[in-house]
């Protein structure tokens, strides 16, 4: 895919090819302006249907050519969650917000009911379903936004920095919710995030973009190397710590990417 926004001097993404399998948890990262948000907008057809510009290439979701379907049709297949839940909630109760999608898909009442209850349950929002969104905390609002997307039962959910407005505790809780959708229900997750510290333990794959192109793509362990550092990616702190320790002459078989791996390695070194 290549896309140039109307009025922009050059493409925001250039010749991007990705193949994501069902059930993957993919983190997309890269410096500001690298094109990662643009890729997200392509995934559910916002580009080229909503943002004007010059699009070339093809994108298929479950064999559906995104170009040949409306954004509304794609919403049932690819759900999108933004940074700020404020932009996504508009009803007078959480339940109404969550029911909005299924109702607009023209589903039967029973089916809508079932999906709404399920989506509220999975996101831990059942007890708060009658509250107006503006009375909720930021973390609860983001859960409600995820529930609203989930009720359309998409196979893929794309999240663009979904925790950056949240306090650290709420952020971790939201990431647990997302991880559960992936592990328990098998929803494919595509998560755009700068903060690799908090997302690495959930991801099976990390895609690094730079200057509109994909430059690294693989398991976190294989991606978090010197090249990623040079592009300006903020490696997880534990990975950076172990890179320093290696330079200090310490030896260990593999470089950790999560706190648990790092703790295990240090325990081994310190109890020898």
């Amino acid at each position, binding site marked *: 895919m290549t896309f140039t926004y109307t009025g*922009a001097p050059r493409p925001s993404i250039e010749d991007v090819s990705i193949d994501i399998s069902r059930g993957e948890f993919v983190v997309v990262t890269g410096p500001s*302006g690298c094109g990662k*948000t643009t890729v997200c907008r392509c995934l559910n057809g916002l580009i080229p249907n909503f943002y004007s510009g010059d699009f070339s290439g093809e994108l298929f979701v479950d064999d559906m050519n995104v170009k040949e379907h409306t954004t509304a049709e794609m919403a049932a297949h690819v759900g999108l969650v933004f*940074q700020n839940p404020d932009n996504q909630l508009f009803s007078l109760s959480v339940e109404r917000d969550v029911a909005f999608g299924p109702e607009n898909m023209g589903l039967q009442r029973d089916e809508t009911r079932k999906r709404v209850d399920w989506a509220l349950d999975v996101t831990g929002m059942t007890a708060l379903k009658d509250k107006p969104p503006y009375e909720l905390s930021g973390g609860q609002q983001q859960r409600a936004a995820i529930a609203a997307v989930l009720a359309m039962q998409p196979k893929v959910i794309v999240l663009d920095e979904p925790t950056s407005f949240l*306090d*650290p505790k*709420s952020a971790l809780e939201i990431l647990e919710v997302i991880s559960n959708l992936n592990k328990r229900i098998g929803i494919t997750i595509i998560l755009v995030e700068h903060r690799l510290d908090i997302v690495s333990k959930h991801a099976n794959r990390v895609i690094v973009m730079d200057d509109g192109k994909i430059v690294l793509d693989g398991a976190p362990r294989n991606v978090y190397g010197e090249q990623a550092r040079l592009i300006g990616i903020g490696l997880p*702190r534990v990975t950076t*710590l172990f890179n320093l320790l290696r330079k200090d002459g310490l030896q260990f078989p593999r470089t950790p990417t999560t706190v648990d791996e790092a703790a295990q390695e240090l325990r081994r070194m*310190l109890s020898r």
Partner: protein
Amino acid sequence: MIETQGLKFAYPGSSEVLRGIDLTINDGEFVAIMGENGAGKTTLVKTFNGLLQPTAGRVTVDGVDTRESSVARLSRDVGLVFQNPDHQLFSETVREELAFSLRNFGYGEDTIGRRVTTILETLDLSRYAESSPFILSGGERKRVALAAVLVWNPKHIILDEPTIGQDYQQKDRLRNFIIQLNAQGKTVVIITHDVEFVAECRPRIILLSKGLVIGDRPADDLLSDGPLLERGSLTRPQIGELMNQLRDFGLPDRAIDVYSAEQAILEALGRKR
């Protein structure tokens, strides 16, 4: 110096957002205000430049009660950069955006041109000088909003969530920039949820919860206090979490950044040999 005494604030018809806050922020200090969503952080800093007036108690800036001044007057000394840049930006080009306030303050065009060029360079925005702020990415728009305040050189600078949407290198630049502002004697107050950024900058942390100050301590001290972190909806920074898991091996949980952790680990291994 920014000082609050018994500061309370309630929006009309709502319960109190600030429930009695006593704080002194000295000139040249670097302070991070942290706490859960809805704790009152943004409300608090809006009282610093008179955007909001206390419903009880008082706020003084450099000895002047904010009630006896105006937002226009206070803003020259207290530069507030909002969380959402779109609430702040309105000009056709980035250069115009930066020149706007300087014109209002009555500076000559020569000075305006010079100041704008310098600040564009400092914040890595020169290449966007003639672009519309609205074609820029979220992170870039945030830097424009910051530049638009810094350009008039306020004495106290308040940044609401400056790291959201910023990548690693920009955070690094922001950190250096804050150090530089502090070195010039400017007060820098940031509101942030970013424990990693705070662990690396080591400001004084003021922790708010439900409209009250529940902690006011240096970063390494506060970010290693498990029960307080829990109350304040904070988490340990990643390195602090790692050190905490290894306390039994004598590693200090106050080591919250990679360099202090590296030293602590080397010492622990050295002791064994």
